């Protein structure tokens, strides 16, 4: 019965005092909180490591140098299915390619697909959500019904449908995965715009003569950016998973390029004879997805002002 003490002016002032003293930037404050969340720091560390690997592999490829233990695409049938040993830490696959090199090489594809797909869904989704939320009425109803229809189809099925229309290939997979998650961003953005829109400062912006577009970009979006960042971080992990799923079905990256889902798909016939060919790509996928999820959760805590004061 006697629960709600949140609307307590004294406590608010005491908590406000926390801020009065330090005119630090929001980013710095966020980082301070994020630092305290061990899981998020681990996630961030893993992501940084993966990004470093991806960059190194990509850079060396451009310069024509080899930094991986072996050429990931070089197959030597005489060396197929070598179990992990000192020479080939993760063993070799059915075509005699070094698994470790392939997995390291696959990092760059997974990261690229994750980020690129999210960039696509983010830009379109935020735009649609912002228009729907701010305009309201029929525009809102139309946009959101289309989104609802998209949401009602399982995302991987929808991605496959897009792939069927677009054709196979990495670039098409990115577009398909990007398109599929548009509704999530549109919904989140619309929802938060609906609540932010009612704030007096948005009305005040209108009273002083702002145009609608400026109100959206200057007054509304910056105030929900944190939400979008969290969602995007978590979205990357979904996109990585979706890529893997498409790869597994043979629709994503085409051979000989190393992609974890594709590796899983091709190795599934050897699950009993050479389980390591499935285990290592599987672990790689798990690690990257987990890392982004940990970071996303940590960011959410860091950006929520209520949990910031402890």
């Amino acid at each position, binding site marked *: 019965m006697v629960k709600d003490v949140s609307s307590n002016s004294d406590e608010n002032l005491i908590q406000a005092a926390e801020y009065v003293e330090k005119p630090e930037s929001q980013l710095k404050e966020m980082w301070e909180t994020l630092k305290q969340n061990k899981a998020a720091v681990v996630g961030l560390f893993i992501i940084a490591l993966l990004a470093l690997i991806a960059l190194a592999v990509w850079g060396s490829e451009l310069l024509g140098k080899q930094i991986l233990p072996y050429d990931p695409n070089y197959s030597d049938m005489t060396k197929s299915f070598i179990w992990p040993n000192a020479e080939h830490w993760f063993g070799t696959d059915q075509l005699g390619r070094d698994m470790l090199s392939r997995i390291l090489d696959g990092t760059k594809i997974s990261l690229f697909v994750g980020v690129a797909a999210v960039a696509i869904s983010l830009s379109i989704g935020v735009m649609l959500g912002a228009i729907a939320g701010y305009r309201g009425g029929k525009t809102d109803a139309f946009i959101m019904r289309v989104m609802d229809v998209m949401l009602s189809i399982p995302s991987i099925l929808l991605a496959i449908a897009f792939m069927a229309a677009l054709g196979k290939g990495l670039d098409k997979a990115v577009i398909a995965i990007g398109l599929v998650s548009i509704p999530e961003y549109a919904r989140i953005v619309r929802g938060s715009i609906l609540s932010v829109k009612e704030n007096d400062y948005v009305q*005040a912006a209108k009273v002083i003569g702002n145009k609608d577009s400026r109100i959206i970009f200057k007054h509304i979006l*910056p105030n929900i950016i944190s939400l979008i960042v969290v969602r995007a971080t978590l979205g990357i992990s979904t996109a990585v998973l979706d890529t893997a799923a498409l790869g597994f079905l043979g629709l994503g990256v085409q051979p000989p390029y190393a992609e974890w889902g594709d590796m899983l798909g091709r190795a599934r016939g050897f699950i009993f004879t050479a389980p390591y060919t499935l285990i290592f790509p599987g672990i790689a996928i798990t690690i990257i997805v987990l890392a982004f999820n940990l970071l996303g959760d940590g960011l959410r805590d860091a950006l929520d002002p209520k949990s910031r004061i402890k």
Partner: protein
Amino acid sequence: MNEVLMKVQDLSKHFTIETDWFGKPVSVLKAVDEVSFTIDKGEAFGLVGESGCGKTTLGKILVNLYSPSNGKIIFEGKELTGLNEKQRRSYCKDIQMIFQDPFASLNPRMTIGDIIAEPIIINHLLPTSEVEERVIYLLNCVGLARHQRNRYPHEFSGGQRQRVGIARALAVEPKLIVCDEPVSALDVSIQAQVLNLLDDLKAEFGLTYLFIAHGLNVVKHISDRVGVMYLGKLMEIAPKRELYANPLHPYTQALLSAIPIINPEKKKERIILKGDVPSPINPPAGCRFCSRCFKELDHCKLNSPVLKEISPDHWVACHLFD
């Protein structure tokens, strides 16, 4: 002397709450219902009423946050209603607003300086090089220091934020400022500071105020004339001295008597109204106040009284004065 700045004629704002299958409204909330009044140049017109009476909606119509369902707004002889969005926006800078909640009315991601500079920049009032100087001048006007312009709203107290809100409204050199309960969210000792500031600015800049409040004592301090609203209708308008000394409408009488007096030895006869404010979705037919009125006549329930001038400048909408 009594030059009319704004004339509001039969202004209404109806919100549709529910529609039937064909989009025809079934239940309508009459937030503001055929309200007429004038505001003279240089005066402070107070608008008093309880929550849900439509006073804030009325204020928001005047600053173009809502478009009226009906009626006219005539500002300096020009009709604002009926203008298209772009033409209407050009009047924005003449009519500004100060909001109630100083914690919600400033964008938390902008510095104080940017908040005050924004109206100047988007309305192209000054060349970019002079904006900063103007911001500093405005900060001084409202009693803030120039070095505070690089800070964010969360670093300020409620009273200081309200000062920023006032500076933002002043930035475009408006002719009329709608003050929507500017002090009701502030501490008592800060209320007096802000009220005095508003008084000073009015004299300094020759401003006209529409001062909206639920507290009759605050309105009395700042206004020249006062209008009393109840459930979307204006019940009584009079110069403040007249209204407080000689309230005619039973609702005004009850409102006045409900104000606690800061003197425990002077216990006054109090009119305690029965019941609650009825929902504006289904207001009583006839006089809006009749469900709570203590002087109700037989025909009050049947037809709605119109605002009539009983004595010079004293208008009241009540069947007792037919």
